[in-house]
């Protein structure tokens, strides 16, 4: 994982190239509702919204996995906490996003701080297993929430409102809200990666001993990244609940955590915009294949394996090689 291009995020040239890709992506997405006006099936708008929501979660995972080198296998827990935050508060009559979202984020921060403090005592495979265990813990906790649907899940009677405005209910408005959130999260994480904190996090992925003898508390740096990552994933869960108007324990299943890792690897670990591309590739492929056959997973699985084997550095690496810039 140390051979990922994440370190070069600090070099001005690839950094600018990556920014260009991300901005172009956001620009393309911004005109998608127009294309729907001109006859593109509106199904694509729904799919793109879902992909952007997962892209936010994948981005947050890339901060710890790609940049920090911490393979968390329990990231779906944060999506679930964010989603239940929206669902439970709406069920309790609090549909205002300005109140519900900060609460959902705070719950994610708390869960991340506690589980992160324990998980980060371990390394490598043990870290993967312990984050998986915490994810499953959140999953079974949600199943036990009988007041909020338990195993069956919870249907949202309405979507959240923003400052009293039911802007989440309109498909196009919601699309733009999600797009703005995605762009905001992308620039936020990008800024963090380039910051002093981000430099220490990147350095610690590669050589934690050197970072420690330079005077940094590596565990603390990783915990902060873990908490930030969990909070951002919580935002994605909050939006997901609003899109599907339904929350269930399945949001936090370990399969979902695995899918998030797939998205990041598929797009290009540690590149940030790769996580966005990976989320889109994953969800569009899933959508198209599941339209062909109900056994789509039997095609999808091998396809991903082949893809990861054949394109070092994911889609980002493939694009870079096609662009003739090589992967140094």
């Amino acid at each position, binding site marked *: 994982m*140390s051979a990922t291009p994440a370190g070069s995020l600090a070099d001005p040239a690839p950094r600018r190239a990556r920014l260009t890709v991300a901005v172009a992506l956001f620009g393309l997405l911004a005109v998608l509702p127009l294309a729907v006006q001109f006859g593109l099936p509106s199904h694509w708008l729904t799919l793109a919204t879902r992909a952007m929501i997962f892209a936010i979660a994948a981005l947050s995972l890339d901060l710890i996995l790609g940049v920090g080198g911490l393979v968390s296998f329990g990231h779906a827990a944060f999506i679930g906490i964010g989603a239940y935050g929206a669902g439970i508060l709406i069920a309790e009559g609090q549909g205002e996003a300005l109140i519900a979202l900060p609460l959902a984020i705070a719950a994610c921060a708390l869960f991340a701080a506690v589980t992160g403090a324990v998980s980060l005592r371990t390394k490598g495979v043990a870290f993967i297993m312990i984050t998986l265990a915490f994810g499953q813990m959140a999953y079974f906790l949600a199943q036990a929430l009988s007041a909020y649907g338990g195993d069956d899940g919870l249907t949202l009677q309405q979507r959240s409102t923003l400052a009293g405005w039911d802007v989440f209910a309109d498909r196009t408005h919601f699309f733009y809200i999600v797009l703005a959130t995605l762009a905001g999260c992308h620039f936020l994480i990008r800024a963090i990666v380039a910051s002093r904190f981000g430099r220490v996090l990147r350095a610690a992925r590669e050589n934690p001993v050197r970072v420690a003898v330079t005077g940094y508390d590596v565990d603390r740096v990783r915990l902060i990244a873990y908490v930030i990552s969990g909070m951002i994933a919580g935002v994605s869960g909050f939006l997901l609940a609003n899109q599907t108007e339904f929350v269930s324990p399945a949001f936090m299943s370990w399969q979902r955590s695995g899918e998030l890792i797939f998205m990041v690897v598929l797009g290009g670990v540690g590149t940030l915009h790769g996580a966005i591309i990976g989320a889109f590739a994953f969800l569009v492929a899933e959508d198209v294949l599941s339209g062909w056959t109900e056994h789509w997973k039997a095609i999808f699985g091998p396809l991903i394996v082949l893809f990861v084997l054949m394109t070092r550095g994911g889609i980002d690496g493939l694009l870079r090689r096609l662009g003739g810039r090589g992967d140094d």
Partner: protein
Amino acid sequence: MTEPVLALSGLRKRFGALQVTDNVSLALAPGELHALIGPNGAGKTTLVHQISGMLKPDAGAILFRGADVTALSPQRRARAGLARTFQITSTIASLSVLENVALSAQARGPRPLALFGDAARDEALNGPARAALEAVGLAGRAHVSAGRLSHGEKRALEIAMALTLEPAAILLDEPLAGVGREEGERLIGLLRSLKGRYAMLLVEHDMDAVFALADTVTVLVYGAVIATGDPAGVRADKAVREAYLGEEG
């Protein structure tokens, strides 16, 4: 005699049946270059690991700038002003040479973990980093990834990273190991230029370098100190000649 920067007293460490550090006491005075020599397996690196906090001694105490640091983590000792280099070079390969040194500058400065602001363009970090690279002769390589440096250049980079911490003492674990003659001579020149400005504990196999540079030499055999003193005295010491220097011819 002035108060030592670093003082070890009665340090002991055992790996199973093997006593790797056997009642070691030594003192490093301000500005002193203290060489630690001994045959392979004498426990030199293990001792450096205990001083820097990567290993915990079984018994004994480590005093750094008058405070007992025996129980402190490596990062706490580094922040107190104890820098080190590694026998196997330890840099951040994917970061540029300048960023490697800026990482040290950042550790010393205010808000080392600031979440915002572009660190790569931060002159408060790059300025001191460039000065350190200038001092070790790597100014021309500032924008190369550290992983692409030659072995000797990596050694120099590690020294620049240590210097940028503005340490009170530097532990140098075999800075000349595996380095060619030409680069080795450049490194010896660099160490000589640092002499007197920093307290340095130098673990080294290159006897010519040790006797040319050191103010004090301590000889470690099977984890125990068998001699300590000025280079000429140690060279003449009978026990040392038998145990160690004799083999070198």
